[in-house]
């Protein structure tokens, strides 16, 4: 049981970590919480599902296809909506991204219907680890998460785009003055963040097993809880906080019951915020 | 040294540190009732921080504050305003832009007309009569201050100088004992500066309100203040009538160096 809980926890945590890094880099450049972030995760899942069911592609191909589809959608939304949030008061960001989430969720429900769908794909054959059966997919998820994390760190630290991203996150006014195409950086970062969410969705789908249009909402809030706990903009903190949440959820689901799982993130969030209310959006942000 | 309980405002050992930076360094100050006391000094000398600590906007690292004999150390700003009637102005955030000039004054007077938290939930006749009286009083104060013609204008639409006059008027509505003005003449044209000085003098003469004025405009200070205190690097380096103080060599040096 303990191994199960640990493995499930690390797996879920790895997924959450990817999504959370996406949200945190978007926040870094835009100073806005993407309330629709979970929806891109959902779209990644649905994209992969659609590719397998309708176009009959193998799972391995469905993943990049799903991410590509979401990238296009994110690009459109980035240009139409997210750009306008630069320098906007935060309430506008909340409402606008909430509006986006409503549209995305319900378009999916409109097209595919509101019922739960089964995901048929991925490698769910179990493998023996420490005396417990762990599905191959979970191992893949953890490895993929670590690889992608490393990749993101590389992008952020070594590439030109990464440096521009950090510059905009640190001082957007200075960037504007120096001629940086801030809207382009914002859109690019946004697309990257959403692709991370979509990738997580596609990777997790075989493990979660079922998908439905409204699955993104819980993800958005859990992700927010993670970045609060891990420190906004702090990538290694996010990783730790994500694994911590994954483990806590797994423990609660295993020992108390699955129905309490989703409340864990909220309670953790409220707990953290009660103890350190001001510490979240301070100027001390690092990439 | 024990605090002066007859003074309008008495500070003992007031100190404020920001980490390793000492903004205010063990200041003792007594301001007798009815005085117009100027407070000046180069940028970074701690004037605004001193104000903030006296009025509850920031918590002092050390020291005690007494207003009219009552200790107000550590009190929250709204409590100092309500109970000790020590009211301060702000340099930039000056008026409530969403309301008219008159409504700004009504709001400021509410703490007098509706004392107590529950009293402010008054509805019906109690509300209407109280507000009517406040509006009448507001009219009087506006006449005094010279803003009567702007009574129904949106506070966000009048000029900056007029906003500062309005801010002054709101402070009068609250029945103050001590008024702390944070650079009331910065960014204001000379005509309105004259009016501001006249208003301060009148309020001081007619109602005995004690004033502490932070300003850089030394000419205005000379004309207005009974006494000038100079701060440099968090300490008082001069404290006398304005004529004497502006000629002291260490004051001149502080201004040139700072």
């Amino acid at each position, binding site marked *: 049981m303990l191994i199960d809980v640990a493995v499930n926890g690390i797996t879920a945590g790895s997924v959450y970590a990817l999504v959370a890094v996406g949200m945190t880099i978007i926040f870094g450049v835009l100073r806005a*919480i993407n309330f629709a972030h979970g929806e891109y995760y959902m779209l990644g899942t649905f994209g992969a599902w659609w590719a397998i069911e309708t176009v009959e592609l193998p799972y391995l191909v469905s993943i990049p296809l799903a991410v590509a589809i979401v990238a296009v959608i994110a690009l459109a939304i980035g240009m139409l*909506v997210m750009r306008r949030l630069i320098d906007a008061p*935060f309430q*506008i960001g*909340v*409402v*606008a991204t*909430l*509006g*986006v989430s*409503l*549209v995305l*969720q*319900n*378009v999916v*429900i*409109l097209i595919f219907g509101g019922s739960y769908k089964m995901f048929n794909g991925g490698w769910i054959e179990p493998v023996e680890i420490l005396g417990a059966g762990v599905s191959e997919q979970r191992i893949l998820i953890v490895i993929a998460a670590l690889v992608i994390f490393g990749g993101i760190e590389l992008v952020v630290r070594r590439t030109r785009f990464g440096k521009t991203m950090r510059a905009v996150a640190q001082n957007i006014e200075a960037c504007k003055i120096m001629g940086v195409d801030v809207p382009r950086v914002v859109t690019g970062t946004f697309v990257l963040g959403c692709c991370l969410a979509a990738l997580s969705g596609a990777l997790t789908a075989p493990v979660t097993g079922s998908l439905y249009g409204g699955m993104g909402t*819980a993800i958005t*809030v859990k992700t*927010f*809880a993670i970045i*609060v706990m891990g420190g906004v903009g702090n990538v290694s903190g996010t990783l730790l906080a994500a694994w911590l949440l994954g483990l806590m959820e797994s423990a609660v689901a295993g020992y108390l019951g699955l*129905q*309490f799982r*989703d*409340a864990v993130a*909220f*309670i953790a*969030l409220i707990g953290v*915020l*009660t103890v350190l*209310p001001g510490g*979240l*959006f301070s100027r001390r942000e690092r990439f | 040294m024990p605090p002066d309980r007859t003074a309008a405002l008495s500070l003992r050992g007031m100190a404020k540190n920001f980490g390793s930076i000492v903004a205010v360094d063990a200041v003792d100050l007594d301001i007798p009732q009815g005085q117009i006391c100027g407070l000046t000094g180069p940028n970074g000398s701690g004037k605004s921080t001193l104000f903030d600590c006296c009025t509850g906007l920031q918590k002092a690292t050390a020291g005690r504050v007494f207003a009219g004999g009552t200790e107000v150390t550590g009190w*929250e*700003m*709204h*409590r100092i*305003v*309500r109970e000790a009637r020590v*009211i*301060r*102005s702000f340099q930039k955030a000056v008026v*409530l832009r*969403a*309301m008219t000039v008159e*409504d700004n004054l*009504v*709001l*400021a007077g*509410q*703490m007098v007309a*509706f004392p107590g*938290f529950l009293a*402010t*939930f008054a*509805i019906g006749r109690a*509300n209407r009569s109280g*507000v009517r009286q406040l509006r009448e009083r507001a009219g009087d104060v506006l006449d005094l201050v010279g803003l009567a013609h702007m009574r129904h204008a949106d506070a966000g639409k009048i000029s900056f100088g007029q906003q500062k006059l309005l801010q002054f008027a709101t402070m009068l509505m*609250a029945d103050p004992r001590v008024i702390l003005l944070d650079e009331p003449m910065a960014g204001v044209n000379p005509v309105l500066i004259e009016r501001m000085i006249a208003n301060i003098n009148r309020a001081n003469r007619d109602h005995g309100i004690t004033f502490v004025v932070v300003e850089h405009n030394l000419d205005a200070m000379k004309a207005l203040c009974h006494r000038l205190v100079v701060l440099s690097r968090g300490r008082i380096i001069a404290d006398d009538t304005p004529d004497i103080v502006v000629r002291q060599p260490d004051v001149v040096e502080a201004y040139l160096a700072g």
Partner: protein
Amino acid sequence: MGTDRGLRAAGFAGMLAFLLAAPGFLGEYQVHALIVSLTFLLPALGLNLILGYAGMLSFAQMAFFGIGAYVSALMAMRWGTPFWLNLCAASLVAGIVAVPLGFPALRLRRYSFVMCTLGFAVIAQTLAKNWVSLTRGDLGLSNVPRPVLGLWSSGLEIRSVTQYYYLALALGVIAVLAFLALVSSPAGRYMIAIREDETLAASLGAPTWRYRMAAFVLSAMFAGCGGSFYVHYYTVISPTIFDPYYGNTLLVIVLGGGVGTLGGVVAGSFIFVALSEVLRVAPDIRMIAYGLLLIVVVFGCPEGLLPLLMRRLRTWRRADAT
């Protein structure tokens, strides 16, 4: 200014006259649509108070709405209490629950406050689903007794749609009057000041935390009332009441109608809820429309549609005069 107020008063009077006569010329389904919009009006007024007047974006309204509904249902089912008692209890319990929730929440700013209040709705839903002995979990409560208007256990039992409608209308009018009294009071003025500039309000003697808590508790009470009527009308309640669907509808009513205004929220309630009920718009299409509306409104006219309309009317009138 004077003609504005005259116009607004005339608008209200006209609308009230229309609403009073409505069952006479509208079909039963349309009257039902009006009842639904009146039901949502109450929590929408609460949201308007906390968002439009106190300046805090709270997602907790539906949590209090649901709590009010469950309290009212349980009282009616277990003790057979009359409607007015259930209503008061629902409102009071919602307000009382808001107090311990307000303590952590009101220390937060911006996103943290929004997410914390969202969290309340989720926790409320989890509680409703799992406290099976009280709420029967996902099955919910059904056969909630119809409202009885009387001093104790006997009195007029509300049965027909028309009777429900007039009860809803009466509640709506009372709520609007209460809201108006509140925002015109000195406390209401303090709340507006706190929304504009909290430090400045404190410097004018306003105990800002107390007013923010008061706004939070009062909005919860508005929502609780709405929930009480809701459960006696639909006679069922289940944890789905805490779904984001309803909370989002509230946001559309307030933001789309005119945040910070009374007429705007009332109009918003009728336009967005009644209209979509009457047109029998499917929920997913409704949500897409709401989502697009939120985006358009927040960028185009953030103060809401009704104030925009009033401004247009004013410029037309001024153009006519010249």
